[in-house]
């Protein structure tokens, strides 16, 4: 059975595509089971027609009707993230995570970040949400979480801003890790025309997850908070 990846093609690093990773425009092009086929996420509605057990979809497209699919998260596709995750220790810590996004408010984006960090720091013990008035642009959201693994965290999002950026700081006893996608980048440019933080297919496949019971429970837990407490 072939491997099929559903992705926003603008986010794929085309320079690093291997010979067996092939971008296709329709399902008809799936012919060889040894290939990894990459299909633009505008074809997501066709997922049900794909005959494969190796289907990878982005979390923002996933819904609970997607069976036999693996899901990948945007944050885990950043090249820094694996190193960041491996650099953490189990000490009590403060996490500060901040995204700036050009898109309008997306509860799915927040949700997937919370899921990724819950995978590292455990379930939320306490959670508080604060956000700006719906008539203001940009929109800003602050989420405070105390995780089971002795980590307290701020997750902040500015939507409808003029650039995208991820900023993360982790402070523990004798160890501080900082990353800012704008500053820690090979590019220094006055424009946003260079594509940065692009997905690679091996990363995407290796971080994809089956939506098991524990993850589904976390989704329900966080979704409820986001739906009840945010009206943007």
């Amino acid at each position, binding site marked *: 059975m072939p491997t099929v990846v559903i992705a926003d093609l603008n986010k794929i690093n085309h320079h690093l595509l291997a010979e067996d990773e092939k971008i296709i425009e329709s399902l008809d092009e799936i012919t060889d089971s040894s290939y990894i086929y990459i299909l633009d996420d505008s074809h997501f509605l066709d997922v049900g027609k794909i005959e494969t057990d190796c289907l990878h979809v982005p979390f923002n497209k996933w819904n609970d009707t997607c069976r036999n699919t693996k899901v990948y998260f945007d944050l885990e596709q950043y090249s820094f993230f694996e190193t960041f995750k491996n650099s953490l220790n189990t000490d009590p810590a403060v996490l500060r995570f901040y995204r700036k996004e050009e898109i309008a408010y997306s509860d799915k984006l927040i949700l997937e970040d919370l899921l990724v960090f819950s995978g590292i720091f455990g379930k939320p013990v306490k959670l508080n949400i*604060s956000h700006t*008035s719906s008539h203001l642009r*940009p929109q*800003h959201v602050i989420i*405070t979480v105390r995780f089971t693994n002795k980590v*307290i965290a701020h997750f902040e999002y500015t939507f409808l801003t003029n650039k995208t950026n991820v900023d993360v700081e982790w*402070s*523990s006893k004798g160890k501080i890790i900082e990353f800012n996608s704008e500053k820690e980048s090979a590019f220094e440019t006055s424009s946003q025309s260079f594509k940065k933080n692009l997905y690679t297919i091996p990363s995407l496949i290796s971080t994809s997850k089956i939506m098991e019971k524990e993850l589904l429970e976390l989704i329900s837990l966080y979704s409820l908070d986001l739906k009840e407490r945010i009206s943007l």
Partner: protein
Amino acid sequence: MKIGIMSFAHQHAYSYANSLMNLEGVELVGIFEEDLVLGKELAEKYNTVHFSTQDTFLEINMDAVIVCSENIYHKEMVINAANAKKHILCEKPIATNKEDALEMIRVCEENEVILQIAFPVRFCSPIVELKRILDQGMLGEVVAFRTTNRGTNPGGWFVQNELSGGGATLDHTVHMIDIMRWFLEKEITDVYSEIDSCFGELESDDAGILTMKFENGVIASHDASWSRFENYPTWGDVSIEVIGTKETVKVSVTNEHLKVYMNKNKALNYAFTGNDMDYELVKYFISCVQEGREPSITGKDGLKALEVALAAYESNLIGEKVKL
């Protein structure tokens, strides 16, 4: 202008003393310090007179005092100085509880002396510039603030709650609350926080993250901690990001630096190149005393910042948002 310093328990006293030495027409006429050995050393260092009791110190001819004691003694020293008709610059936080702060403000008003709280960040050049462009409307309407004030654990009495009144959350929250209030000219109405001891086995807290809401709907986050360690390139940070409807601007005070790399344990050191806030703070206080005018940072400002820090502790305790 004759100035005295009451206690060198807070390390900022040294910076303020150096500032006094550099101001023309200003004389450091005495130091009150209960630690006799330290007091003698300081008197020699600053070529002044040491006093071991507040009574004898406050009898000398001087216009104003700078209070740099442990937080818990601010009230006693400020009230004694006010009753002795001395103008006062008091280290932050103004006090360790609201009642003490209110009494300090009242006694200073009754004695018609200045009570200025030491919020030197108001005199940091990039912060002043940010205030200017904000007031000119260049950022549009403020939507949110993101602030930090993180440093190294000062140890000593700072980590003893009976002397400090609180740990890093108290120590490193009040500066940025004051700046946000100054920028918006609005008060904070809601505070939510998570506070903990993450960086050492301390009696006091060393980390606090706060989420706040102002009366006009602006929201804010703040990260207060003693998370920085000896080998970190700088002592810590003071930063504010103002997210506006027209533009977003971030000011990181400690980003004004040279990067100095050395082939030793602390390989990278940030050599600060910004302006001396403490000097500007002291200079401003002296000018207020000389001209007999009320400072822009009053006891009320100290009280308002303290209220938010205390609300953060309460929020952490009850696990809910606290209304002010």
